[in-house]
């Protein structure tokens, strides 16, 4: 049989005995039969769009060929706004990637984009199932406004959320495009300024029914979690931290307790918990199933697909309760795409899609459990006492103690917190879509019309069920040595904290409902005159309305609406000169009547030099060469805070209890007050973006394609609070204006190399990178005098971090006394800052831009596949560079008691901190403390780290079973593979996974090892 390198059978491949006219074509399933003259014969496989392959017959009777896509053929069709275009006639900057590229053992598509999609800056901050979406921005952050900054996502033309995209299965994707420049996106007018991601799903093809099946079983574990110190060190350093700030303070831990714990005395009396081990498992198993059926007849075709994914959390839940509260996220979806040929010129398409998440997990989510492992004292109590100590007690006896003797606050027992109850959430997305296409060729050739509408409803609810744990303290009976338990919170006299319960209670959570209705109608014209003049035109009218059922205020409850008229006109001459004009004319209900509509035009030119006559001699080397240029303007109406729906109206709360007062003898006469959360401003209008793109496409030796783009974006009218409004004006909220301006620019590069190395060996390599920087041109900020000009944000990147310059730690108290005053009570071993403005005091005015931007400026990826006969092996590396992030010292401050939590000690702090006996002025952690030290918690270079990393993102080893084997077990084809993601990471930072940045105490990014199988029946 003949397949492509994804294992898909190829229909109609031409099989020819070399040097003869003896040839056949492969059938629908890629099967062929040919009689050859002798064993010396060589078979030549050729197919449009694929590289030709030759295989010697020798004595084989079954010869399976794998054909590789030929990138020199540019007939490829690419999704563009409201339509499709041939790649060769593209003028604008569009990244189109094959769905196979996005396959990996993860049930979150967004995590696959970094380094694979040229032009996309993406990073993942958490690995928690259900909360592990990557953040992604097209060509970097374009704006610093409070509104939308991530791209518009359209799946089959339906406006979708990043989570919708995350749940999409690569198996169901037909094509995937990212519109990056103004010419591509201006047709989306008000919504396209941050770029557009276009995805279309598969539709059925006429023919007999086919079943495709994929199953994966995944082993998932933390890439790199934070590490905590052992408990003996913990107690010793807690004592040190107490004494080092106040030599007279009572010690939290007695020498006796430390020694007994170290000697391994009874852990019920001398608790010694490693909360991470007790709360978090080393690994978990996840499963994914995907099944589709497609086929149809001439008049009707269908593609029906179902998905079932199970993602488990890493929580170490044992059978203490009869409910399981580890994280379990079931995700199922059903998609049905049906194409109907209603008349010879009319096509109707019905798409139905339902996507459902069923989540069970601990109260507050997995991130909270990871946090609580660090924020709980490990030596105050055991997690739970064995039942044998009190056989008649009918509830779990969790360990407990006051945070400090007499505080009246129970210390947090993270184990009890984890197992005390569970949270359930369920969300559903239902979409019904109808599309009609009418060929109007009977009126005039090349004319057609189209209409598409959809309704999309989303619903969400969550519920928590929990009991209040009973906490016990223990002591030894001096007479018989037995352990006596004493309940702390049974509600009797002297009981502290919430009284325990043996029964579950219920707490309804959020319920969210929203609805979107959308309708677009279009006419298209597409025709080529005299073989050289190709002309097309399109006009589209669209309206949409969105409402949410949980708005919280009258204004937010009103529908969000867009209306627009868009168009595209192209002219191509002889496939050499291409010209394109696009526009969007859009209205948004957010602005006052006169400012509602914005007009967003763009133009583009392309020159295909390789089609010039004079170029033909070079064509064997440079098979394609195209220059592109586009320029245009796009808008953004999703600006400002979400609750500021109508800038032209004031927002007043006429019953605000916070602003009320009470009078009377018994204080009984109360009235609420009046507050304003927005003053009206009819002048506020669109945020706008002017974008320029210069691109170059080169094809070399028919196997290597290179695409390079330089881009520049000028974003202006960014909504910002006025900086000159001082407090003396007495406004409750600072008014905003369209003021800010940003220029961002950069370039991106992608390379693909596909080559048949020999009759058995083939390879396909790819690399791409995106580099994007920004500079603030106008920012509503104080007009700083020259000597403070370093405080300006103007001139810096949008994501620039600011902070003090930390020189080192103070040597001793004397040095502190002779240095500029800093923050709070500073001692030797605390961080010493540079007095930038030389005023003898370290203040906010000494903050300067430090480090690189906090979102990466450079994202890159490279890798490839090498194949030998039926085997293939892929590797993919992904990296990120040119970013800084800041450790948040307040989050890892050890021994700090805050309410019921008391923070643990990171191993990194235990190993490397300043102390009286080791006055290392460059130690990782300053002088210990049991409090938050305001001086050391200032944002500064001390806590700044380089965010660059390179990770081995993906490995896959696959085997496509020969047809003979597949057929034996009743399959048409079969692929088995082993794959992995997030296998290794290299960076200069080692406290936790560098990609998580400042979010290191959360749920770690997951390494996944997978065994999978795809089959077609």
């Amino acid at each position, binding site marked *: 049989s003949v397949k492509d390198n994804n294992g898909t059978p190829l229909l109609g491949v031409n099989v020819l005995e070399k040097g003869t006219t003896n040839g056949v074509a492969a059938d629908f399933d890629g099967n062929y039969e040919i009689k050859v003259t002798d064993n010396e014969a060589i078979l030549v496989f050729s197919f449009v769009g694929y590289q030709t392959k030759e295989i010697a017959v020798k004595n084989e009777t079954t010869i399976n060929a794998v054909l590789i896509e030929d990138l020199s053929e540019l007939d490829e069709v690419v999704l563009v706004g409201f339509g499709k275009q041939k790649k060769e006639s593209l003028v604008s900057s569009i990244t189109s990637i094959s769905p196979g590229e996005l396959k990996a053992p993860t049930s979150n598509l967004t995590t696959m984009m970094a380094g694979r999609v040229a032009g996309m800056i993406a990073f993942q901050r958490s690995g928690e199932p259900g909360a592990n979406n990557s953040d992604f921005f097209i060509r970097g952050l374009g704006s610093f406004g409070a509104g939308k900054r991530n791209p518009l996502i359209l799946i089959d033309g339906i406006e979708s959320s990043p989570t919708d995209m995350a749940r999409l299965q690569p198996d169901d994707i037909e094509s995937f495009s990212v519109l990056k420049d103004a010419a591509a996106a201006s047709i989306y007018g008000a919504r396209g300024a941050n770029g557009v991601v276009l995805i279309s799903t598969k539709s059925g093809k006429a023919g007999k029914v086919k079943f495709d099946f994929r199953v994966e079983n995944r082993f998932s574990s933390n890439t790199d979690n934070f590490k905590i110190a052992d408990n003996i060190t913990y107690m010793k350093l807690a004592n040190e931290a107490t004494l080092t700030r106040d030599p*007279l303070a009572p010690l939290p831990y007695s020498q006796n307790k430390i020694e007994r714990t170290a000697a391994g005395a009874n852990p019920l009396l001398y608790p010694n918990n490693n909360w991470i081990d007790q709360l978090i498992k080393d690994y978990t198993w996840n499963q994914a199933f995907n099944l589709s059926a497609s086929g149809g007849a001439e008049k009707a075709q269908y593609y029906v697909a179902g998905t079932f994914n199970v993602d488990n959390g890493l929580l170490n839940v044992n059978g203490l309760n009869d409910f399981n509260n580890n994280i379990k996220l079931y995700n199922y979806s059903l998609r049905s795409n049906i194409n109907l040929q209603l008349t010879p010129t009319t096509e109707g398409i019905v798409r139905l899609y339902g996507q459902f998440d069923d989540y069970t997990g601990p109260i507050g989510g997995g991130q909270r459990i990871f946090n609580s492992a660090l924020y709980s004292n490990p030596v105050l109590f055991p997690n739970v006492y064995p039942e044998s100590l009190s056989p008649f007690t009918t509830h779990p006896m969790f360990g407990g103690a*006051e945070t*400090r*003797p*007499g*505080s*009246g606050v129970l210390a947090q027992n993270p184990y009890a917190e984890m197992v005390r109850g569970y949270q359930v959430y369920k969300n559903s997305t239902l979409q019904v879509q109808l599309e009609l296409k009418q060929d109007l060729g009977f009126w005039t050739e090349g004319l057609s019309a189209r209409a598409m509408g959809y309704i999309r409803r989303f619903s969400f609810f969550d519920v928590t069920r929990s009991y209040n744990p009973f906490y016990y303290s223990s002591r030894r009976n001096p007479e018989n040595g037995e352990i006596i338990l004493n309940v702390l919170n049974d509600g009797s006299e002297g009981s502290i904290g919430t009284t325990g319960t043996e029964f579950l209670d219920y707490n309804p959570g959020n319920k969210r409902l929203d609805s979107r209705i959308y309708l677009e*109608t279009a006419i298209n014209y597409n025709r080529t005159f005299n073989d050289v003049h190709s002309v097309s035109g399109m*006009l589209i*009218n669209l*309206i949409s*309305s969105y409402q949410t059922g949980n708005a919280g205020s*009258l*204004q937010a409850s*009103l*529908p969000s*609406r867009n*209306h627009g*008229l868009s168009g595209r006109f192209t002219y191509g001459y002889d496939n050499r000169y291409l010209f394109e004009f696009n526009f969007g004319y859009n*209205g948004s*209900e957010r602005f006052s009547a006169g400012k*509602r509509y914005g007009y967003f035009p763009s133009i583009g030119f392309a020159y295909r030099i390789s089609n010039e006559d004079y170029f033909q001699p070079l064509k064997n080397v440079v098979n394609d060469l195209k220059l592109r240029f586009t320029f245009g303007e796009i808008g953004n109406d999703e600006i400002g805070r979400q609750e500021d729906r109508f800038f032209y109206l004031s927002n*007043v709360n*006429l019953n605000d209890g*916070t*602003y*009320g*007062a*009470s*009078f*009377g*003898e*018994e*204080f009984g*006469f109360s*009235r*609420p*007050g*009046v*507050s*304003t959360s927005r*003053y009206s*401003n009819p002048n506020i209008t669109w945020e706008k973006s002017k974008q320029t793109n210069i691109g170059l496409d080169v094809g070399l030796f028919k196997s290597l394609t290179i695409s390079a783009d330089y881009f520049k974006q000028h974003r202006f009218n960014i909504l910002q609070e006025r*900086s000159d409004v*001082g*407090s*003396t*004006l*007495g406004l*409750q909220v600072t*008014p905003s204006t369209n003021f800010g301006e940003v220029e961002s620019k950069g370039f991106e590069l992608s390379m693909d190399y596909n080559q048949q190395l020999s009759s058995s060996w083939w390879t396909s390599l790819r690399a791409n990178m995106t580099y994007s920087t920004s500079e603030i041109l106008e920012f509503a900020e*104080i*007009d700083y005098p020259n000597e*403070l000009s370093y405080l300006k944000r103007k001139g810096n990147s949008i994501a620039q971090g600011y902070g003090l310059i930390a020189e080192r730690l103070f040597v001793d108290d004397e040095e502190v006394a002779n240095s500029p005053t800093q923050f*709070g009570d500073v001692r030797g071993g605390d961080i010493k800052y540079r007095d930038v403005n030389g005023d003898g*005091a370290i*203040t*906010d*005015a000494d903050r300067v831009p430090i480090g690189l931007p906090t979102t990466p400026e450079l994202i890159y990826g490279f890798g490839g596949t090498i194949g030998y006969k039926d085997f293939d092996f892929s590797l993919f590396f992904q990296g990120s560079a040119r970013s800084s992030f800041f450790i948040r010292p307040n989050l890892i401050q050890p021994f700090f008691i805050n309410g019921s939590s008391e923070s643990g000690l990171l191993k990194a702090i235990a190993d490397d901190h300043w102390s009286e006996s080791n006055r290392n002025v460059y130690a990782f952690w300053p002088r210990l403390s049991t*409090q938050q030290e305001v001086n050391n918690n200032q944002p500064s270079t001390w806590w700044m780290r380089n965010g660059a990393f390179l990770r081995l993102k993906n490995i896959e080893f696959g085997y496509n079973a020969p047809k003979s084997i597949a057929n034996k077990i009743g399959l048409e084809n079969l692929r088995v593979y082993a794959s992995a993601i997030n296998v290794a990471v290299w960076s200069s930072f080692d406290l936790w996974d560098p990609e998580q940045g400042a979010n290191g105490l959360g749920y770690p990014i997951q390494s996944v090892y997978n065994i999978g199988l795809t089959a077609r029946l």
Partner: protein
Amino acid sequence: IISFQSCESHLDVVPDSAPTIDNAFTLRNEAEKYLFTCYSYLPKNGDVRFNIAMLAGDEIWKNDITLDDVSNFEIAKGNQRAGNPLVNVWDGNSYGAGPNNNFDIFDGIRHCNIFIEKMTDRNNARDLDELERTRWIGEVEFLKAYYHYYLLRMYGPIPIIDKNIPIEASTDEINVYRAPFDECVSYISDLLDQSAEKLPESIEDITNELGRITKPIALGIKAKLLTMAASPLFNGNPDYVGFVDSQGTALMNTTYDPQKWRKAADAALAAIQSAEASGNSLFYFEQNQFDLSETTLTKLSIRQAITERWNPEIVWSNPNSRTTNLQYYCMVPVSADYNHTLAQKILSPPLKMAKLFYTKNGVPINEDKTLNFTNETELRLATAEDSYNIEEGFQTARINFDREPRFYADLGFDGSTFYKRDSPSKSDENTWVIRAKYNDYAGSNAGVLYNVSGYYIKKLVDWRMTNSTGEPYRSYAWPEIRLADLYLLYAEALNEAEGPTANVLEYANRVRQRAGLEGIAESWTNFSVNPSKYTTKEGMREILHQERLIELAFEGQRFWDLRRWKKASEELNKDITGWNYLGVTQEEYYQIRTLELQKFVAPRDYLWPLSENTLLQNPNLVQNPGW
């Protein structure tokens, strides 16, 4: 394609009746809410976290662990700064009071201006009768004046916001200047006069309106304003020579004007007359079924003058600042049955406050020729004679003996009695006593809720306090002005204006009499080493200053009084001390422990810093001297 016109209307999603600010003034009912909004910016002075004066000076100390988010206390510890000022009332972004506990006082002024402007228009709230309309406007004029006064006391010269600047104003219009101090005073004073004419003499509808502003309140604040303006900090203070703004306008007068004291005295007298005419009088606790001793009755008169709800001495108390939490923080366990959450006792008056009070003879401890207090750590055994104040047979510091009733009424200490209505003996004999050494029931071995000086504030706890899980405290509205305060203001101003005349003695002696003391002349003549001190203006000034500090102790007045008298640089540079709260035995406990080497930098610390950011934002503002 759908016609474009219909799509225009597709975008008109806002119904006509969406609420706007005009809806707040259509009906009386709505306007009343706006009136209350103006009230809501009154600082919550009955809360130790929000009353700047309670923890930012030297009157009350505390440990560093509890209430560790209180920025006032950071000021007391010398950590004020211009970079990001503590208690930044000017910018309203600090832990303060008012809505959301921010001191957004300029927002409050803007609300007042809106209210006055809208209500002056008779087309608004047409269902409001003229009398009530006038009264409401008067109340809001008062609030506007009070908010200006509040800023003036902290910052000195301030911008006068008489009319609101429009939101869309240009930068030049928004960038206001600070007005010279005297101009601010006369503006506020005129506004108070204007409001007093519109205000009622007293509240008739006590069920619904007690706590609303009346005429005596307006006149009382005017008296406080003018006394402050006549005081040395603001009246001819040479430290402020050269305090000019960017236009060259001098922001402070630097020549002393004695006439200001005369105005202050007149204002104080007017306030007293108005208050007395409305039924105000000094509070005396009435004998009851428990048949209390004279000593106890005097102490209850002193305590309940503050803590008795709406008692006749209260000229103004703010029902939006109630005192349950304050009482929790003050109260000390008086038996082993109390848990520390109920009686947290964290507010700790330093030893200097204990020394401030007179001897039982009504003169300062270092002036009494019959009593010797020089050995601070000396101990003494209490006898039956002391038993209404100190438990008989208990040994405690000598300094705790032979003191005036206000000492025993205001302060608790190791071995002191604490009479409350729930006295186990049903009388003031053998009543509750305090045990304060480390392991005792009121001692500091109590987690985070411990006292650091060995003194406890009884003064602010209502005598009905009980050890119960329901409502252990009866909260009272925080007294902003007591009649005793006005009497002492009048005596002080009159002495400055005309020397120690009979009226000066008369008004000060009224306060002393309630405190169970002889008059100034008798006390000094008979007991002071300086018997003629009261006969000179300067001597009388010192006497009246101390009288005021004692009478108004722990009420958040000392902080401001020390400032206006320019005495803060002396007083706030002394060490904060207390008994050794970690002491277990008598010997260990009665050692003097230094809690803080307090620092006050003059003249810098007399006025609040403006934040550096605000100065950059509005270059027309100038920083206060020294910052």
